[in-house]
């Protein structure tokens, strides 16, 4: 007779479940944004029932990196002020651009309506259907008195191209020149020394200091190979294409690139820095030159004074040829969640975050390089050494097109070289390492 209590309990649960079940059914019929079989409908019922039109409160969740929180708050207020007739309920959350993809793909429907992310995540996000196709929802921009074409032409063409897949725009560029270059201490290194690795390392050794670079990261390690004319590319099925184990169109063998890298890493004045620790090591003051990005400009100023040097990446020697390193060159984009309940307003806000005023402000507050062509002309930008170095790499920078399978093998590859665990004399071993790398990177997804 124990069934009675169990059954009582089950009743309660089931009534509750049925209630939730029923609760979502009406919204299936009348919903505007919800989805029938999906969970989303239950929560959208609230929106739908309060009636369409401008009377209803627009609920948005927006994410930005930890250090951009104040900037985001200010922008949200400005955005609200721009539409005084509309009620907003905008939640602000923390999510770093570099990890946005990981959080979003765990549960797309629960992700923020608008968030910023680094351009290398674009393909995975588009592949998972997480990003709204701006071409489909772009007419919402009419509320801001703009057209999609105007927005596109206001930004540098490269940035728009990088934010597009198959000619469809999937996100709004907010900042560019997300890349790395060479910082140096002008009291130790001359501008001429900074032009190639040999003289750079020689000068550093003379001063008893080190030159630092991160190698155990697919983002940094690629610069040597891109420089030698090798490529990575993204196939339509989400896998990565890679040719580093062969001979590049420039006639340079992958094996020889690795040998040159090993020459550099075996130099006493070279210091490999683990991924993510650049700022930390930089601040320690042991370095006279380091490969890093605009985010370390303030550290550079602290350590070496306001007149620190920043130039494009040096060249390295392959055989007797001088090869210019080419950095991975990326952007930061503002995404619109494809499953956003108020997608129209989300588009408006994302565009707002990418407009000239926002980009200029972001530059002033966080040294972010604008992509807006007007903002790029500003005098303030010309005065900033780090940003100039980043922008100067616009011609040599390579937009890194890789899939999710690229990063782990590339990281391990970089670590092997950083630790000198392959011998520069053993061509066969180096070839094997490259073959393994290409195998891992080009493997089918999952």
């Amino acid at each position, binding site marked *: 007779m124990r069934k009675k209590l169990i059954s009582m309990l089950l009743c309660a649960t089931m009534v509750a479940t049925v209630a939730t079940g029923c609760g979502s059914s009406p919204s299936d019929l009348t919903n505007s944004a919800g989805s029938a079989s999906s969970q989303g409908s239950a929560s959208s019922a609230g929106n739908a029932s309060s009636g369409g039109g401008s009377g209803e409160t627009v609920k948005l*969740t927006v994410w930005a990196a930890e250090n951009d929180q104040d900037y985001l708050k200010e922008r949200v207020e400005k955005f609200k002020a721009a539409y005084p007739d509309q009620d907003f309920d905008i939640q602000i959350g923390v999510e770093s651009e570099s990890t946005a993809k990981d959080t979003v793909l*765990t549960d797309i429907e*629960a992700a923020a309506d608008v968030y910023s992310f680094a351009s290398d995540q674009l393909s995975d996000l588009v592949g998972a259907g997480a990003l709204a196709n701006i071409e489909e929802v772009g007419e919402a921009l009419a509320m801001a008195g703009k057209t999609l074409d105007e927005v596109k032409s206001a930004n540098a063409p490269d940035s728009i191209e990088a934010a597009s897949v198959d000619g469809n725009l999937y996100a709004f560029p907010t900042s560019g020149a997300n890349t790395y270059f060479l910082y140096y201490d002008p009291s130790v290194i001359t501008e001429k020394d900074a032009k190639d690795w040999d003289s750079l390392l020689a000068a550093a050794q003379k001063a008893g200091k080190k030159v630092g670079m991160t190698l155990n990261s697919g983002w940094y390690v690629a610069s040597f190979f891109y420089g030698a004319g090798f490529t990575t590319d993204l196939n339509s099925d989400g896998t990565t294409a890679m040719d580093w184990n062969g001979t590049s169109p420039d006639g340079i063998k992958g094996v020889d690139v690795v040998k040159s890298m090993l020459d550099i890493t075996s130099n006493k004045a070279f210091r490999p820095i683990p991924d993510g620790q650049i*700022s930390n090591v930089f601040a320690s003051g042991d370095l006279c030159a380091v490969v890093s990005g605009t985010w370390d400009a303030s550290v550079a100023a602290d350590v070496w004074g306001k007149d620190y040097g920043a130039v494009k990446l040096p060249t390295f020697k392959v055989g007797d040829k001088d090869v210019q390193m080419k950095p991975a060159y990326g952007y930061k984009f503002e995404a619109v969640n494809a499953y956003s309940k108020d997608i129209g307003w989300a588009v408006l806000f994302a565009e707002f975050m990418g407009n000239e005023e926002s980009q200029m402000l972001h530059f002033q507050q966080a040294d972010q390089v604008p992509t807006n062509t007007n903002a790029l002309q500003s005098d303030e930008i010309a005065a900033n050494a780090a940003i100039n170095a980043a922008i100067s790499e616009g011609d040599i920078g390579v937009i890194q097109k890789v899939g999710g399978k690229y990063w782990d093998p590339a990281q391990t590859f970089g670590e092997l070289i950083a630790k000198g665990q392959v011998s520069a004399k053993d061509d066969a071993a180096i070839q094997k390492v490259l073959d393994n790398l290409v195998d891992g990177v080009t493997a089918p997804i999952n």
Partner: protein
Amino acid sequence: MKTKKMKDSRTSTIIMHNVLIGVLAVIWLIPIVWLLCTSFSAYTGINTSTFFPEKWGITNYINLFHPDSVAQFPQWFLNTFIVACINCVISTMFVLMVAYATSIMRFPMRKPLMNMAVILNLFPGMLSMIAVYFVLKTFNLTNSYAGLILVYSASSGLGYLIAKGFFDTVPVALCEAARIDGCSEARIFFQMVIPMSRPIVVYVIINSFLAPWMDFVYAKMILNAGVSSKYTVAIGLYKMLDKSLINQYFTQFCAGGVLVSIPISILFMIMQKFYVEGITGGAVKG
């Protein structure tokens, strides 16, 4: 002469013995001391050159109580405290209820249920995490403390074994006598067994109170809206060590760690006796 020699060697072994313990204690405490020292450092990043900070200061503690967009320690502390208290009540009840039913009472489904529990405990918790997330989402409980509490407490009944072991030591005759006297099972449970089992009750209470302070995996998954003021202490502090933040927040992280550890240490100090008795009374039976 002879006795004095013996006494000497005695004292020397005693000294040796205590020195050995002292050395071990120092080894065990080095990281804790480092935590404490670093938390009083005036510098914000990781101190890699000296063990003790070059400049001392209490700025980290002051900053902890002046929340910025990243660190909102008082809020986190409050959140965790609330979750911990509610979880403590529910989990303790569940664990004691299951332990009593399986230990003191006899009913036909007892053995099968206990075997099921053993099997369920063998599944890696990480595996079911994603599914738990979607179950919560179904009930619209993600990004809520109710959801978090449910995750910590709903399955807590599975951790009943230690408490059961303790209850097993309650003499059967005592319960029988009470039953003959006409006590209901409920009265035996509340008025006899529970008061007799103070150590295990304390043990269970401490354990369930601590869970939300220690866990960051589930909390990170469930509170995924990225709203910093809703974090628990564990995720809040964990996020401070993000690559882009570690240099500004490492010492603050240490200060936060110290502040979390203080109440827990005090709890441990007060409850140490019960804890040892409870854990061993139960572990004896495993």
